[in-house]
């Protein structure tokens, strides 16, 4: 992780955000029970204990996605990252975690680093992850389980893309990018996977002063308790 004591550069910001996604996605997979809790191990980061997966295929898959994301963040060409949880049996979308990314396009590779302490950013990230954990108070219990990681889908303002490294599973990662992006070879188009009749809750956001990430969770509205 870049720790230029002088401030945040574009590259540093991209790394911070990508790192957040890596831990954030792991946390969500653990909290929502997509993968069995025994397949996770505890690590310490952002001054808190987090769960990351030990399942090698999933780990591999997430690493690939995150590094690709880092590139796009650097190019400021990604707009959203969405984690979609579907029910294996009925194929309906149960939950949708959406992370909107706002990139300050004026920050280029050569521009001066911005003033923001890494500690502040980490504090903000910590609040977001804590809030994700707290959503258990109102999110419905997910009965769906997963054995392997699944497709990673890419969204190009209307042209969704899917990754080709693919197993049967119940969660998907979608990325919305700029229209003129060249689709990388491991990705494919996909649909938006919107939940019909959803409840939406806005969560906290954090900013590195170059990238701003806001989070939101949508879940299927239940007519019964």
């Amino acid at each position, binding site marked *: 992780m870049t720790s230029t004591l002088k401030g945040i550069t574009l590259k540093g910001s991209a790394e911070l955000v990508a790192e957040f996604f890596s831990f954030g996605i792991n946390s969500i997979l653990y909290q*929502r029970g997509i993968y069995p809790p025994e397949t996770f191990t505890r690590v310490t980061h952002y001054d808190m204990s987090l769960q990351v997966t030990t399942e090698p295929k999933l780990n591999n898959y997430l690493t690939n996605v995150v590094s690709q994301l880092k590139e796009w963040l650097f190019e400021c060409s990604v707009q959203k990252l969405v984690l979609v949880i579907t029910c294996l049996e009925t194929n309906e979308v149960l939950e949708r975690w959406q992370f909107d990314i706002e990139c300050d396009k004026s920050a280029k590779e050569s521009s001066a680093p911005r003033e923001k302490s890494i500690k502040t950013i980490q504090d903000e990230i910590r*609040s977001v992850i804590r809030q994700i954990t*707290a959503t*258990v108070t*109102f999110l*419905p219990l997910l*009965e769906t389980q997963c054995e392997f990681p699944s497709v990673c889908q890419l969204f190009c303002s209307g042209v969704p893309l899917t990754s080709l490294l693919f197993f049967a599973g119940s969660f998907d990662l979608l990325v919305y990018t700029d229209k003129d992006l060249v689709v990388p070879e491991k990705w494919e188009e996909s649909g938006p996977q919107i939940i019909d009749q959803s409840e939406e809750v806005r969560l*906290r956001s954090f900013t590195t002063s170059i990238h701003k990430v806001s989070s939101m969770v949508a879940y299927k509205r*239940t007519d019964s*308790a």
Partner: protein
Amino acid sequence: MAEGGDVEWELSKENIQPLRRGRDISALHQALSQQQDGPTSAINQQRQAFESELRMYDGDDPLGVWDRYIKWTEQTFPQGGKESNLTTLLEQVVTKFADDKKYNNDPRYVDLWIKFAENCPEPLDIYRYMQAQGIGVMQASLYIAWSEEYEKQGNHRKADLVYKEGFSRSAEPHDKLLQFHRALQARVSRQVMMTVHDDSSDDEPQQPERVSLADLKHRGKKKAVAPVNRTGPAIKSISGGLQSRGAPVLGNASNSRLVIFDENKNQSAGSSGPAPDPWAAPPTSRAKENEQKAERWCDVKIPQKTKFGHTVMAPPPPKPTFQPFVEESTQPPIMTPCKINPAVNTVLSARKPTKEETPLKRLQDHHQLQREAEVGKVQEQSMYCKELLLRGATEFCFEELRAERYFLKMGQHSQSSKPETDQPSV
């Protein structure tokens, strides 16, 4: 700090009980904001509306009213607790429709039973009772909840048997039963593999759990320390992802050098498998270890004063075998006036042996009464609409009932265009 939109739920997150089917976020916000203002009239009005509807409803589906009321209660009172009257309502609805055959396999009714069971001290008894009475035996949800209860108690074999029973009865929806059964098998096989693989599961640092009480200091030479960590059923969590290893922890409680009396142990030695037993007798009351059986009081006499001049306020315990030390004092013991007339023995009467009251017991008593009423053995009969007044969580008085009828009638009159003769009637 970054803003986070509506964060009231996060600030009160410890006061919100998670629901299995999730919560409606707008209802949650409304409930939380109104709680800060104290019990405002909006919630009370809604509740009053439900209570009236319970009494005035005249249609085909009375269960529907109860169902909506209970769901509203769950969403509006995120803390649960006494204020919500949830347990009262559940008990009432369950008792009321217990004999109504048409609701026996209504999924709403079965779900209400399951919620009721979860609120009871011994859910397994409730599930067995349901099976014996034929309630919900065609619904997958019963078997799923039953099996989860067994799993929580660490009894995987029975948990599996329950599913088999469900399949043999062709419970619906079949796919759901299949899905949950597979999930159970996956969990069980993983646990088996885990215990086979790493015997060093104790070395793995346990998640820092919240310790609720201070560590008890040991006294004397024995260094046994009672653990304050949660074990077994207390670790149950609703979110599947956080289902920490409930069953193995039971075995790994390395601190418990004390054998803790388990009043529920004698229950598991009961019926073999979920075969329907005829319910001749109610389930055995819990064996509490610190309850003395009531004994005859014929041999204990109450003296007016003991020789030390103390006024007798209660029947004394049996005399100790040693001679208590008496100080040599020049003053005679002070005679305090005795206000108790020994002939009147009503200050403290002997404690009547209380029957162990559980909701299930009350349900069965009710059932008993109903059966007797049918046979014609009933002792007393109330000549007013007692049931109507007592329905629901709160009690209505006659005037309220009359008012409801009046409002209903007024509503109907205003809708009809023809003028009708207004007869004053109740």
